[in-house]
């Protein structure tokens, strides 16, 4: 949150308009468009495994962005994000079960999750800081319990099977095709969030975060904006969850645990609180982390380290440990996250070799 004060030198904005643009220069906009275009080419390589990782990054990134709007931009801490992600997944599966086409069910699930988020958001608007953290922790357990109990909605312990989306008879049932669907949603949601932050409402959210008393004195309705932020965040979580449901094709009631919520929080802390692109960086980091651990375990398999520690059957624990350790280390050594590091790198090259 101190990111604004630590903005590197080399900032030469002269008008308010320049300050609020999404892309600071024409070049960076070209780079962003080229990046998306390049991503469109990835399925052509035909590497299923890379594609499945990137799809994961996509839907987790959307949900993480939602959490970042709530925590990073509005300063409301939530430890129950995976529950809302789950509501999105089940809602979408439920809509499809009742005859709604999948492509329509995804945004509908987002709206349904927004409604659920608002229900929890209205009481939460009275709370802040650690009281809110504890309340959302309780919400996590209550919603998890609801999933296990509400058979009409979640299919109970058996879970719910759902279908891949299709459009005019064309099914998005392979990694290659589903990738484009996720990519479209990612682009849409990220542009939406970036634009939201430039708007009056977005600035109000940031004001609530920075000093809620001053914000209230300036005429910002605290209850309204805190609830709104909860709603927006739930919408993103719902979209992410729906994309998850139609990719995995099976939604289990046990998938949306507190550990998953913590992973979302880890993503936005590692990526950078209060940074739109940081959410995606955090999601990429969090998806890659277990892969790196797995790679490491495979690399040392059979060696002395493996025999001493028994790595082979401990990889799942090792992953959790690495997630915990990554959160701790980032908070101590890089509290502004990867987004801040990226900004520093860009600033370094901007004035190279005369930086600082």
């Amino acid at each position, binding site marked *: 949150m101190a990111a604004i004060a630590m903005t590197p030198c080399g900032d030469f904005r002269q008008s308010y308009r320049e300050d609020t643009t999404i892309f600071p220069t024409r070049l960076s906009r070209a780079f962003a468009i080229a990046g998306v275009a390049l991503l469109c080419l990835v399925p052509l390589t035909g590497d299923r495994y890379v594609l499945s990782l990137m799809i994961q990054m996509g839907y987790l990134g959307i949900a993480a962005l939602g959490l970042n709007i709530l925590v990073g931009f509005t300063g409301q801490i939530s430890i129950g994000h995976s529950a809302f992600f789950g509501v999105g997944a089940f809602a979408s599966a439920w809509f499809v079960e009742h005859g709604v086409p999948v492509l329509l069910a995804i945004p509908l699930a987002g709206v349904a999750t927004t409604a659920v988020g608002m229900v929890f958001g209205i009481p939460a608007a009275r709370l802040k800081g650690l*009281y809110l953290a504890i309340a959302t922790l309780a919400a996590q357990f209550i919603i998890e319990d609801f999933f296990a109990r509400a058979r009409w909605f979640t299919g109970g312990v058996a879970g719910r099977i759902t279908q891949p989306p299709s459009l005019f008879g064309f099914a998005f049932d392979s990694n290659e095709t589903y990738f484009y669907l996720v990519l479209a949603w990612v682009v849409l949601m990220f542009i939406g969030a970036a634009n939201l932050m430039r708007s009056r409402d977005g600035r109000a959210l940031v004001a609530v975060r920075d000093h809620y008393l001053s914000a209230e004195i300036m005429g910002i309705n605290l209850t309204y904006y805190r609830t709104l932020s909860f709603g927006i965040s739930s919408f993103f979580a719902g979209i992410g969850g729906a994309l998850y449901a139609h990719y995995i094709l099976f939604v289990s009631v046990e998938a949306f645990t507190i550990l998953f919520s913590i992973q979302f929080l880890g993503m936005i802390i590692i990526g950078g609180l209060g940074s739109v692109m940081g959410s995606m960086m955090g999601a990429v980091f969090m998806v890659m982390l277990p892969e790196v651990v797995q790679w490491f375990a495979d690399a040392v398999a059979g060696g002395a380290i493996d025999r001493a520690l028994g790595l082979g059957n401990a990889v799942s624990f090792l992953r*959790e440990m690495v997630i915990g350790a990554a959160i701790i280390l980032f908070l101590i050594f890089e509290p502004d996250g990867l987004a801040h590091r990226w900004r520093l790198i860009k600033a370094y090259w901007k004035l190279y070799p005369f930086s600082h």
Partner: protein
Amino acid sequence: MNWELLFQLTLNGLIVGTLYGVVAMSFVLIYKASQVVNFAQGEFLLVGAWVCWWLLTEHRVPFLWGFLITLAFMTLFGILIQVVVLRPLIGEPVISVIMVTIGLSIFFQALMKWMFGVFAQPFPPIFETQVVSVMGLEVQSVYLMSLVISVAIMGAFAWFFTASKHGLAMRATAFDQQVAQSLGISVRQVFAMSWAISAVVSAVAGVVVGVVNGVSSALSFYGIKVFPAVILGGLDSILGAVLGGIIVGVLENVAHFFDTTLLNWGNMYQIAPFYVLILILMIKPYGLFGTKNIERV
């Protein structure tokens, strides 16, 4: 209505509740002294119980010695966590502090699973007689032990904070850090000490629960159950923590009773405290005994 069962469950709730009270007390201790909400409180129980179990079964240390070594280890563990992880974060926003303790929590949970496996392990039996009859009700002797230990810890806390020099220093720090510092109290030392005491007390509770139910990762759930207790009692009140713990303990057992006999919703034992938690946050967020925080600009 099965009155005998209800009475038995209430008694169980009281006994478990005093344990919650002990854990809640050590949670409040950290919060009062260093303003850190410790989401890793349950892992103190877990680590303490596993260390004691390891000494007792793998090394065949007698119970008393094993227990004492565990406490010594937990003192060091608490200080180490405070110095290495929490000290760099002094003055950071609430979210960072909360997240770092959450990070610690999942780190140690996974580490313990890795080192000791995922299955519950029983402690070697400590008492000769397993069941004692009190007023016609059967009570396990380990439960009685846990009750005695809990009450002893509470008494020790009361003495520590009213009579001992370090306890007074801690209260002064909790009241106002700058004033305490100007009176020659080392705030760093107080922080480290509060974490050490909290870790030790939680480990005692962990060992007691381990003796009763066996040691498993379920122990860390006590760290989550602490939240309803401390919110009910008020985040910065030690008395409130004890009372809150007892109320939560009784509440979940009574909820369990009505659940099994009347409602058949299932799982109320786990969830009822969280409904209460949300209710209290809505109505009286500072709890029964907490100090109301007035903000001035």
